C-alpha cells in the first residue's frame, strides 16, 4: 500500500562476525519494508542468516564482535544509530521478541507475574498493583487457564506450551507495534505448535502488530505469514505474497525446498533433493551463492550477483536465468498441499 509509512524498514543490512581466524558474512544485503498489521515470514535453513537478521532488528548483536551496516528503522526509531541505553527504552515498548526456548528467555527465580509486572512498571511507571492487574489480563489474553494461580508460578512449574504462552504475554506486556518471533514453535509438539500458531495469528490481528516470523518449516510459514521471504546465504533470494511463493515458486532454491518437504511426494519414491550443502559463510562463492548446488546454473551464474527481478506484483526473485526467462521451476502439486487430502 502506498502512502502508509512502513513500521519496519530495512535497507541493505549487512552483518559480519569477526573471529581471529575468519570473517563470517552472516547477512549480505537484506532490504524490506513491513507495514502495520502485516506478517513477514522469513524461511531459511540453519546458517542462512535469518536469526541474525532478527537480532539486528532489535539491536541484540554483540557490539564488539559483530559489524552491522545498513539502515534499520523500527516504529520511527533508527536502531543502528542507537546506544544501549536508548535501545533499552525501545525494546518492549516499540519492538519485542519471542524465542524458541522460553526456559532461557524467562528468569527462573521470579514468578511469571513478577516478571510481567516488573516490565510494565519499568516502562510505563504505573504502580505495582496496577501492573499485576495488567499481568492477569495478559495471561487471560494468551489463554492460560486459571490465570490468577498461574501468575504465582515459576517457569519450571509450567509445561512447554504454557511457558511459550507466558513468554508471549511478557513480550506483549507493553503493547509493542512490532513483534519478532524466532522459531517460537519449533521445540513444541505438533498439537501444541498449532495452538501457539493460531493464538499468535489471532493476537496479531487483534492488536494490529507487525510481525517478523523466522522459521525453517514451510508449513509454519504458510500458516502465519502474509508475505514470505526465502533466505539463502544471507540474502533474500525470493520474496512475495505467501500464496504466490508457495504456488508458483520462481527461484530454484525455493522450488527445491518445496520439493524436499516430502508432502506430495509419492510414497517410497526418491525425493527431488537439492544436492550438496549450504556454502561456507566465511568464503561465499562469487556470484550467485546457490549456483554450486543449482541444477540450472551455467557459467554466468558464477560471475555476477543476480539482481532482484520483479516477477509479478510484489513477487521478486534473485536469479539470472529466471530473469532471462530461460528456466521455470516446477510448482508443488496443489491437490496435495494439505495433509489428509486424498493421496
Amino acid at each position: 500500500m502506498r502512502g502508509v509509512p512502513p513500521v519496519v524498514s530495512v535497507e541493505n543490512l549487512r552483518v559480519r562476525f569477526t573471529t581471529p581466524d575468519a570473517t563470517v558474512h552472516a547477512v549480505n544485503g537484506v532490504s524490506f519494508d513491513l507495514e502495520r498489521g502485516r506478517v513477514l515470514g522469513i524461511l531459511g535453513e540453519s546458517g542462512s542468516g535469518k536469526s541474525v537478521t532478527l537480532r539486528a532488528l532489535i539491536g541484540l548483536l554483540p557490539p564488539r564482535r559483530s559489524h552491522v551496516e545498513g539502515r534499520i528503522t523500527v516504529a520511527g526509531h533508527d536502531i543502528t544509530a542507537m546506544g544501549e541505553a536508548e535501545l533499552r527504552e525501545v525494546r518492549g515498548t516499540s519492538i519485542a521478541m519471542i524465542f524458541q526456548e522460553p526456559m532461557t528467555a524467562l528468569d527462573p527465580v521470579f514468578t511469571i507475574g513478577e516478571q510481567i509486572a516488573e516490565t510494565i512498571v519499568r516502562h510505563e511507571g504505573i504502580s505495582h498493583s496496577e501492573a499485576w492487574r495488567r499481568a492477569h489480563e495478559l495471561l487471560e489474553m494468551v489463554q492460560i487457564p486459571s490465570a490468577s494461580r498461574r501468575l504465582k508460578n515459576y517457569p519450571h512449574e509450567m509445561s512447554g506450551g504454557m511457558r511459550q504462552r507466558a513468554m508471549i504475554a511478557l513480550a506483549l506486556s507493553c503493547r509493542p507495534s512490532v513483534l519478532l518471533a524466532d522459531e517460537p514453535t519449533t521445540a513444541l509438539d505438533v498439537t501444541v505448535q498449532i495452538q501457539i500458531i493460531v493464538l499468535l495469528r489471532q493476537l496479531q490481528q487483534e492488536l494490529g502488530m507487525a510481525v517478523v516470523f523466522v522459521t525453517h518449516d514451510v508449513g509454519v510459514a504458510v500458516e502465519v505469514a502474509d508475505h514470505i521471504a526465502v533466505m539463502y546465504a544471507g540474502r533474500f533470494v525470493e520474496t512475495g505474497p505467501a500464496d504466490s511463493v508457495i504456488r508458483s515458486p520462481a527461484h530454484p532454491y525455493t522450488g527445491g525446498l518445496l520439493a524436499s518437504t516430502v508432502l506430495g511426494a509419492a510414497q517410497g519414491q526418491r525425493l527431488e533433493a537439492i544436492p550438496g550443502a549450504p556454502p561456507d559463510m566465511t568464503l561465499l562463492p562469487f556470484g550467485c551463492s546457490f549456483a554450486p548446488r543449482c541444477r540450472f546454473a551455467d557459467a554466468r551464474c558464477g560471475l555476477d550477483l543476480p539482481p532482484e527481478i520483479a516477477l509479478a506484483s510484489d513477487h521478486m526473485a534473485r536469479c539470472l536465468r529466471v530473469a532471462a526467462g530461460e528456466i521455470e521451476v516446477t510448482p508443488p502439486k496443489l491437490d496435495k498441499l494439505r495433509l489428509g487430502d486424498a493421496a
Partner: protein
Amino acid sequence: MSALLSVDGLTKHFPVRGGLLNRAKAVVQAVDDVSFEVAVGETLGIVGESGCGKSTTARLLMHLVPLDRGTISFDGKSIGAREDLSHRDLHRQMQMVFQDSYASLNPRLPVSMSIAFGPLVHGTPKSAALARAIDLLQAVGLDPLLFANRYPHELSGGQRQRINVARALALEPRLVILDEAVSALDKSIEAQVLNLLIDLKERFDLTYIFISHDLNVVRFISDRVMVMYLGKVVELGPVGRIYRDPKHPYTKALLGAMPSMDTRRRTKEAPLSGDPPNPINPPSGCRFRTRCQFAEAVCAAAPPTLEMDGNGRAVACHMLVPGSGHSLA
C-alpha cells in the same frame, strides 16, 4: 508376509526416586503393554508426541534398557533365552541410528574406524573390517579418499548421519531402527538422507523401524504406521489408510494439527487444547480421555483394547467397539 520381529506385551516403568531414602516415589509408565509385528522387508513408522514412549520402545527392542515384562522374538527366536538368540547375536541382526549424529560417534576415532569397530568386536580381521568400512562409505555417498580419515567434528550434520547409517550397516543387520534419524537435519539435507535410506533398503534387503515426530516423513517412508500416546498404541495399520481415514480421535487430532501448506486453507482452530499429560500417573482407563472431546464415563472406567480388524488395522477406542457402553459406539 512373515514376521521378522514380533513384540508381545512390552512394558517398561521407570521409578522416580527422591526423598531422604531415595525410595521410589512414583512411576513413569513409559511403555505399557505394547504389541506389534514387523514383517520382512517392510518399514514400520512409529509416531507420537514427546513422552509417548516411541524412543523407549526402540531402546527396549535393542535391549539398551532392560524390559519389565513382555517378549521380543526375532525371526522366530526369542531374545535373551538361553538356547535362542543371545544379545550379541541380536546386535548382529538389529542395529540403530540415533538423532544426535555427533553424540553417537566416538570423537577420538576417524570415522572409518568407527564404522569398522562393530565388525572388529565381532571377530572380523582388521583389514577385512576396514575394507568393509571403505565399501560402506562409498555406499552412503561419501568418497572414502576424502572422508575415511576424518574425525566426526570435521563433518557436517548430514555427513555425520551418513556415517552413522554406515556404522549401523557394518554388521550386515537385517533390521535397522531409525530413531528420529533425520529430525535434526535441514530440509534439503533430510531429503538427501531419506533418498539414501530408500536406496540402501533395496540394496541390502533391509527392514526398517522408523521413529519420528514428523508425520510427513513417516508417511513418505513407511508401509505401516503405529501411533502411540502416553505409552500405549492407539492405532496401527497401513500408512495410506490411516492418513486418509484415521479412526482414533488422537490420530485425527495429530493429523489435523499438521501445518497446512495451502495459504487458502489455513488451520482455523487447533484440534486439541493443552499439552500431553505427564506420563507419571497417566489418566485411568483410556489415557487420551482428558484431551478427547468424545470422552464419556466408560473411557475413565476401562482401558480400551487394541482391536485388530480383518485388514491388518487396529484401533484402541471404545467408540469403535459396539456394546462398549459408549453412546457413539
